[in-house]
C-alpha cells in the first residue's frame, strides 16, 4: 500500500476532532464523522492517527470504517453524487438511475471520475421518500429522477454553473 505523509493541517484537524470528543474510544464513530466531514475521506494514515489519538488499535478503527458504508477511504469528487437505494427509491427505479450514472461517468460506485470532478456512492434513505427516487449532488437534492434526466444533471456541473452548496460535501 503506498504511504502518504499527512499534512500538518490534516494532523491538526484530527487532533482537534479527537479532543472535541475527549479522546474517548467510545466516541470513535463521531470522530470518524467529524474527520471525514473536514478531510473528505479517511485514508489509512488518517485512521492510524485517529487510533493513536484514541489509544485504540488501528484494526478496530478500520473495522468500523469498513462496516459503515458512509465512511470512505477514497477521496470524493468535487461533486459527490449519491443515489438513494432505500426501499422507496429502489422500487421506483433507483437502480436504473444508478446504472445510468455509471454509464455516463464511466465509473463504479465508490470511485471518483478520472478528472476528480465526480464520485458515485449509494446511500440508504435520506428521508425524502415522497420524492423517490432521490439523487443528491453534494447537498443539493434531486427528486423523482429518471434515467433520462441523468445526463442533464451531470451537465449542470460540467458546465460550471454549479450552486455553491453542492461543493460542500
Amino acid at each position, binding site marked *: 500500500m503506498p504511504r502518504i505523509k499527512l499534512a500538518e493541517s490534516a494532523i491538526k484537524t484530527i487532533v482537534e476532532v479527537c479532543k472535541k470528543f475527549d479522546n474517548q474510544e467510545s466516541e470513535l464513530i463521531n470522530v470518524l464523522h467529524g474527520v471525514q466531514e473536514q478531510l473528505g475521506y479517511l485514508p489509512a494514515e488518517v485512521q*492510524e492517527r485517529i487510533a493513536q489519538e484514541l489509544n485504540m*488499535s*488501528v*484494526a478496530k478503527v*478500520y*473495522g468500523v470504517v*469498513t*462496516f459503515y*458504508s458512509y465512511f470512505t477511504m477514497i477521496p470524493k469528487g468535487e461533486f459527490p453524487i449519491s443515489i438513494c437505494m432505500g426501499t422507496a427509491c429502489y422500487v421506483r427505479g433507483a437502480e436504473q438511475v444508478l446504472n445510468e450514472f455509471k454509464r455516463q461517468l464511466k465509473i463504479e460506485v465508490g470511485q471518483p471520475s478520472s478528472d476528480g470532478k465526480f464520485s458515485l456512492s449509494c446511500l440508504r434513505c435520506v428521508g425524502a421518500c415522497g420524492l423517490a427516487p432521490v439523487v443528491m449532488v453534494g447537498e443539493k437534492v434531486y427528486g423523482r429522477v429518471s434515467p433520462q434526466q441523468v445526463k442533464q444533471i451531470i451537465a449542470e456541473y460540467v458546465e460550471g454553473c454549479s450552486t455553491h452548496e453542492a461543493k460542500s460535501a
Partner: protein
Amino acid sequence: MEMINLKIDNKPVVVKKGTTILEAAKSIGIHIPTLCYMKLDDLNIENKPGGCRICVVEVKGRKNLAPACCTEATDGMEISSHTIRAINARRTVMELILSDHPSDCLVCPKSGKCDLQDLAQDLGIREIHYKGEQSVYREDTSPAIIREINKCILCRRCEMMCNEVQTVGVLSAINRGFYAVVAPAFEMNLDHSVCTYCGQCVAVCPTGALTEVDQTAAVVRALYDPSKTVVVQTAPAVRAALGEEFGMEPGTLVTGKLVAALRRLGFDHVFDTDFAADLTIMEEGAEILNRLKRHLEGDKTVKLPILTSCCPAWVKFFEHQFPDLKEIPSTARSPQQMFGSIAKSYFAEKLNKKREDLVVVSIMPCVAKKYECGRDEFSVNGNPDVDYAITTRELASLIKISNISFSSLPNEEFDQPLGESSGAGVIFGTTGGVIEAAVRTAYEVYTGKELSKVDFHELRGMDGIRRATIDFGGLPLNIGIAHGLGNARTLLEEIRAGKSEYHAIEIMSCPGGCIGGGGQPYHHGNADILKKRQMAIYREDSNKAIRKSHENPYIISLYREYLGEPMSHKAHELLHTKYFDRS
C-alpha cells in the same frame, strides 16, 4: 449470593444468579454443543460473542430459541436442550456455515483436530442443502503464521485473544455481512503489522483458518542431506504435551520417548533446550545480580526491574509497543538462540566442522520461535544459528509420517554435551519457572549459602499477575510474574509511570507460559490440560538429580573450556543480544 432454581431437560438445578444456561447445564453434566464460545477457566479468558447460534436451546414460554452461551438462566426457567426444534436449528446453522466453507478436509492441516469438523460429525451432517456463493480471500503468510481466511467462520476467538488477552490489537472484524472477515488493519499481511507471532490466535482457532508455517518438509530434506550434521534441541514444554498427539493423557511426560523418536527420525545429535535454559540462567542470573549490586551501591543509571527475555513474542511486543523501555529487559538471548549459537560454535569446533555443515533444528511449543530464528542478529554471514523451528504439532506429524509407533518406543537419554540439564532448565516451560530457576542460582551466588529448599511455591500458579518477595539473606527481592501480554502490559505501564515496585519480572506471552504455547497440541478450550502440563513440568523438575543451573556439570565445563565467566566478552558475543525500536 442469590441462588435461582431452574430445570434443564427435566433435571432441577440450582445456580448463582447471573449464570448462563450453558454453565447451568454443564454443572449437572448436560453438554450443549458450542462453536464460537470458548472459556479457559482460571485464566480469565472467555469468548462469548453469541455469534454462531449452534448452542440454541428451547425455553418454555419463549417464542424463539435461546443461545445458551449468552442467555442468563432465570428463576423457574424450563429448558430443553435437545428438542427436535433445537436440533434442527443447530443442523441448519451448521449447514449454512459449511455452505461457505471449503470442503478440502481430507488435506486440511487441521483435519482430525478441527472443532468445526467434529461438530459437523456430532450433528450428523451428511449433506449441505444450501449452495451459494463462497468467500474468496487471498492467503496471508508470514514467518510464523498462515491465515487461510476462506476457512474462517467468524467465531472471533482469535480477535478476542489478540485484543483482550494479548492487547496486541492486530486482528479485528472488518467489512460487513457476507464480506465480513477477521483481518489486520487495511487487510495488510501479518508481517506488516505489530503482530508478535505469539500464536494464541492459532491456539484457539476452531478451524484451519490459522495455522503455523509448516517446515517439516525442510527438516526432512536436511535429515536426508548426507553433507549435513543435523542437531536437534527440544524445549521443556514439548515433553509435557507431545503425548497428547498420540492419545496419551494430558500431563503425561514423554521425555524418553521423545528422545527415542528424534533419534529414529535420523537426527545426528539429540540435545535439550533445557541445557541452554541452564545457560540462560547463568547469564541472566549474573545480569540480575550485577544490576542489583550496582543499584544497592547507589548507581542511579542502573535499570530496574530487570525483565526476562526468553520469549520472542514478548520481545517483539515491547519492541513495538514499549520501545522506550528496551534497555530494561535482560540482554540474554532466549534458550533457543543460545543453543543455536553454542551448537554452531563450541559444538561445531568439537566436531571439527564448519558452522555451515551443521543444521540446527528446534522443537518448540511456540510459533514465534520460527520468527525468532530468522531475525538477522541471530545469524553469522547469512547462516542462521537455528535453521528451523518446528512446533510440537509438527514434530508429531513428522513422527506419524515416518511410521514410528510413538507409544511403543523405549525411553532413551539425551546425547552429550548439550543434552544435560537441571530441574531449573525444565521449569522454563511454565509461567513462573524462569524466575524460579533464576532465584535458585542467584540466591546461592549472592548469599554464598546453599538453599535449604529449592521449591519456591510462592512463584508458582496460574494467576495472570503474581508477586512474591524472596529473602536474599536479608535483602528482600521483589519479584513479579506475568503471563499473557495484557498482563505484561499492566506491569510495563507501571514501570513507565515510575511506580514499579519490582526488582525482577518474568514475562511469558502465552497464558500458562510455554505449556500453553501456540505450537502445542490444541487444548480446545480446556484449561485443565494446561494445568496438567504444568504439573508434569514440576514433576520432571523434582525427579531431577540436579535442580540448579549452576550445578549442571556440562554448563560448568562449557564455561571452563570455552566461555570463561558469565558475562565475559565471549559470552556477550555468543549469548547476548540487543533490541530494536519497531514503533
